[in-house]
């Protein structure tokens, strides 16, 4: 740009002759016409339609701490485990998977509640979440869904344990009766977090509101499958099928973000710390487990189990990175003053003739003497 070329010129202008010129002008007219120079890049913040209010962020950054992304992760894994356990139960014979899935779901929903409450500013008021039922608030819906899922999955797991410990057949029946309720809550709970952050004013979140619930749901399935595999189900064929599906979706999601989505709004997903964390999340939950799982289909059994365990660890790490990455991206996006100040619709009928546009700033040094001489 011309700024650097112009700089010596500006310095050369402030010569002794220039100072005498100023002195003469002041003496003749009682004041000087020039108002000084403005150098681009100099530390003079400007308020203008192009720079907003000195670039001060319009939006407030999300104030959620480390608990919330972890809550997204644990909740997603727990809900997926609940669904897997229920379907394993309904379709028949994998009793160990049913039991472990139910236990993972109950433990996960309990941990979820603790994480959610620990982020509240007033922990002791967590029950206030249940004093209203607001369909227009995803946070309210989430609280209700978590309450139902937590209690129902807890009941199912308790029944499971009582049956195992004491051999009470009635508990088997009770568990099977309550399980559909647990699943009914687990299904929205597995992905509502995408709606939760999608339906906000944060540009990078609401821009992706269509894909976020599916993305988070699949991320949850990925980690749920991973947890169950590490809990001793690395030989289960249905789990591998589900893992392949989830990893394939996460791979596609990553490709879409990288190649097809608006690069300006999605800048925090592709640049900076938040970008690298989301990318790492995409890699570890998409292509890496997908390749390992597909390879495990053709490998001999002991090798296949090993491959799937690596895939499971990768999926869990990837899901965690995804949640933390999206949270960091939201914080970074809220700091960007440009997007919320965009004009989306046609200008209203207000006269937008602005003095700032009538007198456009030149690139490089603006010598106001030249301007006023015209």
């Amino acid at each position: 740009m011309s700024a650097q070329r112009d700089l010596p010129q500006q310095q050369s202008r402030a010569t002794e002759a220039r100072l005498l010129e100023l002195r003469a002008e002041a003496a003749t007219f009682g004041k000087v016409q020039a108002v000084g120079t403005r150098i681009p890049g100099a530390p003079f913040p400007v308020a203008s339609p192009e720079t907003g209010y000195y670039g001060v962020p319009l939006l407030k950054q999300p104030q959620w701490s480390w608990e919330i992304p972890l809550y997204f992760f644990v909740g997603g894994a727990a809900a997926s485990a609940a669904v897997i356990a229920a379907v394993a139960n309904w379709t028949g014979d994998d009793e160990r998977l049913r039991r472990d899935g139910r236990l993972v779901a109950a433990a996960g929903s309990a941990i979820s509640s603790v994480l959610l409450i620990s982020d509240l500013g007033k922990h002791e008021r967590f029950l206030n979440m249940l004093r209203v039922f607001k369909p227009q608030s995803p946070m309210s819906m989430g609280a209700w869904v978590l309450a139902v899922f937590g209690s129902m999955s807890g009941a199912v797991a308790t029944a499971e344990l009582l049956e195992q410990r004491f051999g009470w057949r009635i508990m088997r029946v009770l568990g099977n009766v309550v399980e559909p309720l647990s699943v009914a809550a687990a299904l929205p709970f597995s992905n509502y977090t995408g709606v939760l952050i999608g339906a906000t004013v944060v540009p990078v979140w609401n821009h992706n509101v269509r894909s976020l619930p599916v993305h988070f749901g699949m991320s949850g399935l990925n980690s749920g499958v991973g947890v169950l595999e590490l809990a001793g189900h690395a030989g289960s064929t249905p789990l591998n099928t589900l893992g392949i599906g989830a990893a394939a979706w996460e791979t596609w999601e990553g490709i879409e973000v990288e190649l097809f989505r608006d690069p300006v709004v999605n800048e925090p997903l592709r640049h900076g710390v938040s970008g690298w964390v989301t990318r790492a999340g995409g890699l570890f939950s998409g292509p890496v487990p997908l390749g390992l799982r597909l390879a495990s289909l053709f490998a001999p059994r002991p090798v296949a189990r090993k491959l799937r365990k690596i895939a499971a660890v990768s999926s869990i790490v990837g899901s965690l990175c995804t949640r933390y990455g999206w949270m960091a991206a939201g914080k970074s996006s809220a700091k960007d003053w440009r997007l919320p100040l965009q004009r989306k619709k046609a200008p209203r009928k207000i006269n937008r003739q602005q003095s700032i546009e009538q007198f456009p700033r030149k690139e490089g040094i603006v010598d106001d003497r030249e301007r006023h001489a015209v």
Partner: protein
Amino acid sequence: MSVTAFLTDSTLCIGCKACEVACKEWNQLEADGLNFTGLSYDNTGAVGYGTWRHVKFVEHTSTFPGIGGNSPEAEPWVFSSDVCKHCEVAGCLEACPTGAIVRTEFGGVFVQPDVCNGCAYCVVACPFGVVQRNPKQGIAAKCTFCIDRQREDLPPACAKACPTESIKFGDINELKLAGQVRVEELKSRGMKDAQLYDAANTSVEGTHAMFIIRGDERQYNLPPDPVVPTEYLKVGWTSSAVAAGALLAGAIFAFMGAHR
């Protein structure tokens, strides 16, 4: 008492910050501390949990030397007192999961401090970046529209302290009319860029804090098209339902397939 509003006229504001101080003293808000931002004379930055009125110093490079702020030709320096907009359709109110945020009898939006549990969801639901969780108290805080004073038929502290009547307070319909009259008057005096900002044609459907400003609203950090985030709900929940269906169907498919 009727439905009330603020009309903040930046062409009358002298940047004295009496409203900021009055608000802090009346509502017993903590000081912002001694920070230097380098952004004109504004060392506060923005409204937040501890600042419910905030005077913006919108500074331009001078176009004509020696001509003051309200000349028809130029507006080198404008002061504008910012505040919670008290939207007709308020994102924070819609998002609040505890019902702590309510609409008052005066039309304002109020966070009940004894109900809020500090979930911080309103923070990401406000298209104007106003409400914020106070890290010390743990609850969300913003302008209360001086509901305590209004119930005693007193104007809000900021409006009362304003020495130039830049902050006007009164019935919303009267103030809307007064705002339009004032804009026409400014235009007739040559300030063609004067406008009334009340976000009426956007998804917030108007505000209870209106502003008379000169030039583009974006340089005041006033969004031209604020969007209430409930607008994204339909798309979001549809996706959520699709994802839930896919999860259940996928699980059934995977387990049934393994049986054969």
